[in-house]
């Protein structure tokens, strides 16, 4: 490796320039001083519980996130089999009523996008890879990191519980458009939708804790010599996706809270004057479009929250297995950041 660096002094120097403030000020860019930080007190779980259950080690948390996300992913997968079964052989399974079909579509969509992919890429790969790839000892806030996972775990538990409440899970479509979502014409408009909203809120709260950890670890805890422009593209992908998520998820959180209020307290954030079965309901003056704005302020970036870490991982995998460095690394970094910026314009 050191031979290669020598051949490309110009490249190294160039890439350091673009980093601005975070570049080491040493005139000799190739030389990296040995770390002079004192030994850190690292987290060590001693009992089974502190080692594998309530653990603050980012690698274990990463695995926990991974396994929980894969579990929900399998539930989502089975739901998609049931949907395919109904499409291929309509009515073959007696339990596949219209209600159940819509419920399965909804749960499949929500599970795959939020509870599976987001948790897998950011929670799973993020926790496991960030400290290892940027050379940090652990996440900067290990305790918050642990809480983040358990919030996610509770969110999944609440989501799964909605399969077993009277009326079943919500069947409002994964976009949860009001007014339909909380009106009786939709399956699971009672307990089902409430559990979904509570679960989403918990997910966002838990994710915010994790996301802060990823960002601050990447910005503050990199090892000496690991400049921003030397980070693996996987970390760049996770970093940009987390920035997007930190800006986008709050919109989902407030819309979930507002809809919960509409449902329980009869407020009219999203509810205009509505006539159902010949009766004018007590709602009035709200705007269903407002929800769509909030939802898609989350929904559009969400696509890239999921895609960007995958882009980074693919880049690194191809690069490693073809035994070549990444072509146009700096351009790739700007492309990832650019996608992130453009994504908010898409909304």
């Amino acid at each position, binding site marked *: 490796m050191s031979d290669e660096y020598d051949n490309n002094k110009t490249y190294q120097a160039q890439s350091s320039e673009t980093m601005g403030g975070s570049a080491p000020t040493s005139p000799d860019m190739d030389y990296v001083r040995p770390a002079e930080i004192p030994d850190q007190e690292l987290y060590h779980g001693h009992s089974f519980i502190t080692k594998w259950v309530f653990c603050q080690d980012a690698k274990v948390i990463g695995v926990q996130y991974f396994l929980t996300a894969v579990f929900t992913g399998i539930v989502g997968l089975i739901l998609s089999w049931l949907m395919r079964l109904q499409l291929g052989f309509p009515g073959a399974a007696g339990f596949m009523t219209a209600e159940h079909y819509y419920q399965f579509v909804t749960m499949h969509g929500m599970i795959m996008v939020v509870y599976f992919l987001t948790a897998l890429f950011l929670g799973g790969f993020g926790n496991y890879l960030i400290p290892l790839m940027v050379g940090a000892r652990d996440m900067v806030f290990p305790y918050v990191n642990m809480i983040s996972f358990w919030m996610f775990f509770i969110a999944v538990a609440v989501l799964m519980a909605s399969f077993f409440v009277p009326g079943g899970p919500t069947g409002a479509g994964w976009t949860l458009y009001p007014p339909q979502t909380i*009106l009786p014409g939709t399956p699971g408009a009672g307990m089902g939708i409430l559990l979904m909203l509570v679960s989403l809120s918990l997910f966002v709260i838990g994710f915010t804790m994790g996301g802060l950890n990823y960002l601050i670890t990447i910005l503050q805890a990199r090892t000496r010599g690991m400049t921003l422009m030397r980070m693996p593209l996987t970390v760049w992908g996770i970093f940009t996706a987390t920035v997007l998520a930190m800006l986008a998820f709050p919109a989902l959180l407030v819309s979930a809270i507002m809809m919960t209020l509409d449902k329980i307290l009869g407020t009219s954030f999203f509810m*205009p004057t509505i006539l159902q079965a010949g009766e004018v309901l007590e709602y009035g003056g709200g705007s269903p479009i407002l929800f769509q704005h909030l939802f898609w302020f989350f929904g559009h970036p969400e696509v890239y929250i999921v895609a960007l870490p995958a882009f980074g991982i693919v880049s690194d995998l191809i690069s490693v297995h073809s035994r070549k460095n990444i072509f146009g690394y700096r351009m790739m970094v700007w492309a990832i950041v650019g996608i992130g910026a453009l994504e908010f314009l898409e909304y």
Partner: protein
Amino acid sequence: MHPGIIFFLVILGSILFHIFTPWYWTDIASNWGGMDDTITLTFWVGGGVFVAVCLFMVYCVFKFSYKEDRKAEYKPEDKRLEKILTWATTLGVIALLAPGLIIWNQYVTVPKNALEIDVMAWQWGWQYRLPGKDGKLGTTQVININDENPFGINLDDPYGKDDVMIQSDAINLKNNRPVKILLRSVDVLHNWYVPQFRAKMDAVPGVVTFYWFEPNKTGEYEVLCAEYCGVGHYAMRGTVLVQDEQEYETWLGEQETFLDLIAKQQNLVIGDTKLAKNNNLNKE
């Protein structure tokens, strides 16, 4: 088999499938050929990039497969190539986006001679209202809706009295006459969509949305609700019959106006009206 060959067959298969697919769009029956052109352009841009990238990968798999005495070349950047790729991508994205903006502008610019049609959606069905002799629709309010006033027309609005009411999910249109579809919903989101017209928009409770099109082929078409609206969504259908002028005028003459309805209700026993209304509601 060499992975490059398998990869090539995948590319070939995708193109052949696109050409010979049995699931292509229905024949168009309105002025929105531009919509189809936009999608076709998207196919060309997307398909072109797909084929180019995949063929490049096939080439690489053959050219650079592992050889014991060959070392990978170190080439971190190439300013010129990167510039070309960036500009090509930018052009591709512009080609994907710009036509959409132009079409959208046309979509919301309604021609002056368009006939306004009030499309009222509810869980789960449609009904329609056409302007009467005065050429204007009366104003409405959801609160006003009841058995005697199914569209919620404001009773003090003089324009409303002669409105033609079609309390059925079937409506007729005149061939080659532009129509402005005014969408409203009394409960949840719906979407009045006829695939052959290549046009749709959400009906949102609380607001009136609109779009326009000009049917240019006589025949009967199916209306689909294109925004998920609850358990009955799949059954929320209707029909549109596009007719030539004469047949259309005959049909229009047979329809009931709001005044007719009020007069009829004053003459009828209330129970009978309720029955008729219920029958209508139960149809779907």
